[in-house]
C-alpha cells in the first residue's frame, strides 16, 4: 500500500479535496437513485396487491 498517497488523499492535500467532492456527489446520486427506485417499486407492488 502506498502510504504517502493514502495520507495525501485522506488529508485532502494536493487537490484531494476535489476528488472527495466528486466521490461524495457520485455516491449521493447513485444512492438516492437506488433508494428512490426501490421505494417506487415497493409502492407500486403494494398498490397492486391492495387493488387485487
Amino acid at each position, binding site marked *: 500500500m502506498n502510504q504517502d498517497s493514502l495520507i495525501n488523499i485522506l488529508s485532502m492535500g*494536493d*487537490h484531494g479535496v476535489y476528488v472527495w467532492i466528486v*466521490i461524495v456527489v457520485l455516491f449521493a446520486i*447513485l444512492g438516492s437513485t437506488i433508494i428512490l427506485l426501490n421505494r417506487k417499486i415497493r409502492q407500486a*407492488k403494494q398498490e397492486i396487491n391492495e387493488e387485487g
Partner: protein
Amino acid sequence: MIKKFFHQFASPKSYFAIANKFGKPVLVFFFLLYLGALVWGLFFTPPDAIQGDSYRIIYMHVPASFMAQILFVVMAITSAVFLIWKLKLAAYVSKSIAPIGAIVTFFALFSGSIWGIPTWGTWWQWDARITSTLILFIMYLGLISLHASFENKDKADKFFSVLVLIGVVNIPIIKKSVDWWSTLHQSASITLTSKPTIDPVMLYPLMFSIVTFIGLIFGLVVLSSQNEILKREKYKSWVKNI
C-alpha cells in the same frame, strides 16, 4: 418467427420475474466491485506526475462519460427493436434508460467540471468534448419531457423511439461538427482522457473501474425498468402474482 420468439420469451412478465430475482444481487455485486476499483485507483496507485492527486477523478469521470454515450446507443437499439417488432418490453426498457442516462451524463459533466478547477484553473471550458456532452445531456432531458407530455403512453413510446433513432444518427454528426468547430479556438485545451501513453499502474484500475461501472449502471437500468413495467402494466393480471 423472430417476432414469435420475442413475444414468448421477452414478455414483460418473464423479464420481470428474472429481474426481480437477479436484479438486486447483480446490482450489489457490481456496486461492491466498483467500490473496489475506486479503492484500488484512489489508494493503490501513485499520484500523477503533472496533475498530482486530482487526476484520480479519472476513475469516476471516464466511466461516466463512456456510459453517457453507450446508454444512448443501447436506448437506440431497444427503440429500434420496439419499432420493428412492436415489442413492448423494448419500449419500457428504452424509456427507463433515459433518466439514468441523464443522471450519468450530468455526473460526467459535473466531475469534468470539478476536475477542471485544479487542472485548467476554470470550471468550464468551451472545448469540443464538453460541449457535445452538454448537448447529449439536453437531448436526454428532451426525450424525458417528450415522453412525459403524452397521456397516451403507447403513442409516447412511438414518438420517443423515433426521436431516439433520429438522435443516434445525429450524435456522431454533432460530435464531428463540434470537433470541427473547436479547431476555431487557438487555446489548446488539455484533453482529459486521451493521453498518448498511460501508465499500466493507472490503466488497469481505470479499465476495471469502467467495466464495473458498466455493470453498476446496467443494474440501475434493470431496476428502473422494473419500476416502469409496474407502472405501465398495473392492469394486467400477471402483476397480481408478484
